[in-house]
């Protein structure tokens, strides 16, 4: 089963994840993005695809700044 087919629920609140605005920081830079999170406790889900794709690119960009 691929990551996209999975139906992740928050292990604590048993809620299905919904896209929510999440604030990220790295090397003094702050930015926000809509990421699936638990609507109740706010636990944020970062998929492998996102971490090793767009996030990795962004990290490299900010490190080079």
């Amino acid at each position, binding site marked *: *089963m691929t990551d996209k087919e*999975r*139906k*992740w*629920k*928050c*292990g*604590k609140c048993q809620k299905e*994840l919904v896209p929510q605005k*999440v*604030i*990220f*920081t*790295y*090397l*003094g*830079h702050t930015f926000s993005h809509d990421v699936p999170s638990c609507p109740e406790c*706010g*636990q*944020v*889900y*970062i998929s*492998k695809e996102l*971490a*090793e794709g767009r*996030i*990795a690119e*962004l*990290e*490299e960009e*900010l*490190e*080079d*700044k």
Partner: protein
Amino acid sequence: MKLEEATAYTEKCFHGEPASCSYVCPFHLDIRSFMARAAEGKWSRAYKQLREATVFPYIVSVLCEQPCRTRCQRTLLGDEAIAMRDVEAACVRYVKNKKPQSYAIPPKKERIAVVGAGIAGLSCALNLAQKKFNVTVFEKEDTWGGVLRSHARFAEFDEEIKLQFSAVKVDFRFNAEITSLEELAEYDAVYVATGADGEAFGLLDSWNAELFSTAENKVFLGGMLTGASLMESIAQGIAASKIIEGYLQTGKAALTPDMYYGKECCGRYLDHEGAVSKPLVVASSPDGYTEEEAKQEAARCLQCDCDKCMAACEMLKRFKKTPKMIAVEVFADTQNNPPFSTRSLTRQAYSCNICGYCKSICPENVDIGSLLQLSRRVRMNDGVHPAALHDFWLREMDFATSEASYTAAPRGKDSCEYVFFPGCQLGASNPEYVLKTYAYLEQKYSCGVMLACCGAPAYWAGDDKRMADNLQRIRQGWEKLGKPVFIFACATCESLFAQFLPEIRRISLYELLAEDESIIPARPFAEAAVFDPCNARGDAKMMQGVRKLAEKAGVAVEELKEKNRCCGHGGHIRVANPSLFEEIAHNRTAASEKPYIVYCVNCREVFSLRGKEAVHILDMAFATGNSDKLPTLAEKRDNSLEVKKKLMAGIEGKDFAPEKHAWDDLVLLIDDETQKEMEQKLISAGDLKEAIWLAETSGRKFVDENDGMCLASMAKPVITYWVQYREVKPKTYQVHSAYYHRIRIREEE
């Protein structure tokens, strides 16, 4: 930081400086780039360059005595020097448009008198007229040319002079002899170029050969009048025009920086390794080179410029910056105020192996590695370093200097004459390397042991504080043991001790082993190449010791063409630049077809992972087992603790109980593919156990109810780790994937 602090590192680099031929050229023509253009048949650009440097390219191509040929480095290969004048002549012949350019600059009001219409006066007058000064040339004869008029080819030279003056306005007054400078009182500057034995108005004694100035403030002298040759006369006229221009602007005669090299020879001849001998191209016609012949002859130019470091180092090749550019960027990066400006050097600063190879091949010992290490240190001290790039190794260093560290005198003693310092990775790689070596040393010498870290991870991260704290710990341990001699198995440890703890006496383990007749090493191969680690450079005793052991084993040793090159591990560049690391590792792996004998466990790991047969010299000396299998990151830590446990039991009879964590009892099932991926990403099973334990005890995880798959994350201070797993049975989990990111989610903070 001051600019000079960075540029001092590259001050002696002479890349980009004029070649030996240009120094001796009266015009200081950049012959290297002229030849490069000519070789490609770019006659227009080559001609433009020649015209700008010499003013009268045709005359120069006929009459120059070519002192450049006496300094042509082609002759070092036994070839004839480049036929400079013939290539110049071809350039003048094959260029399509020789019409001089007229510059769109506003006319100037100053008036300049040039006395003498010989070649010296003409070159000065032409240059000043191009700058739109009001130039009047006084000539006592009825035409221009001076001594050239008696030359058999004057008709051609006359055409050249006409051509070059065709785009400027100059007031020529022939049959106008100047007998006194008072006649020129109305002019703002005067250039006297009246030829050999010409009128000098009594100013020769006060003539300044560099500035062409005289005791008369506004009067300048040049040309054959001052004893110059024909070519020097042209060059002087050009140089004087620039000085006069400066004088008219500032009231002072001064050298302009672009025209003066200060010496006739650079004194820097290159070794031209790999350059092939090429005979002079002989013209097929008495009229000179055909276009193709001229291109071929120009292509014989060796383009003499030192680029040794940039040609040899994969990192420098990739970033395409000269050493001097890097120095300026190291400085410039410290002047930025984040987040408003861009740091241009970060990736490069953290992509250097700091292996010292550039320095070792540089004729001037310029050390780019030290310069980039400085950049890392400054960033760390300023708190603007990308911590994730070195976090893994700094955590490993912290482990090696705390839980896994152990210092002891030999059994029953408080002090010792020697202490074995295996370095943090030797025992991690294979406990037997340390245990068997220490068993041997303990028997033979009064030898204690110090399990610690030399500080390389802190050094490479630019972490001065961690480095200093670690040195202090080592120094204290050394003093406590009665200041013994350190025995090193790792070249990096030994080189860092040499640099930072020079008071401690050092000896290489391999030198000791090689001296012992009773050691007969195993013979894993009939033939092998010794791969010397970068940090063994200059340590002849260590390098020789390994060779002696290999020879004693009966291995025919091949010497690599390039010695002490970094395997890729140095400088911990792997996270900062994975593809560069891979390229370097690949190149070193392919440096010889023969298997390698190594004496650095990091080198061995790099090669083994790439399928290269590589045996550690200790495998040969002590017939250690289990050397084919590389331990995982978690196993390395376990190995380090096992070494400590066994040594402590043997020396002190004590049982070492490693720190116990609640997650230690968890069992992780990891298939080979996932494990390989984890190793590549530097994710340790130890961290995953902790993440799973945290998730299972707190419930903070994601769950897929369809199949019970779980996903948990754990934010360590620098890196956030993620693990997807499923419980197989109580306390046993199958790991499906692991990944990480460096950015922080706000809730983590």
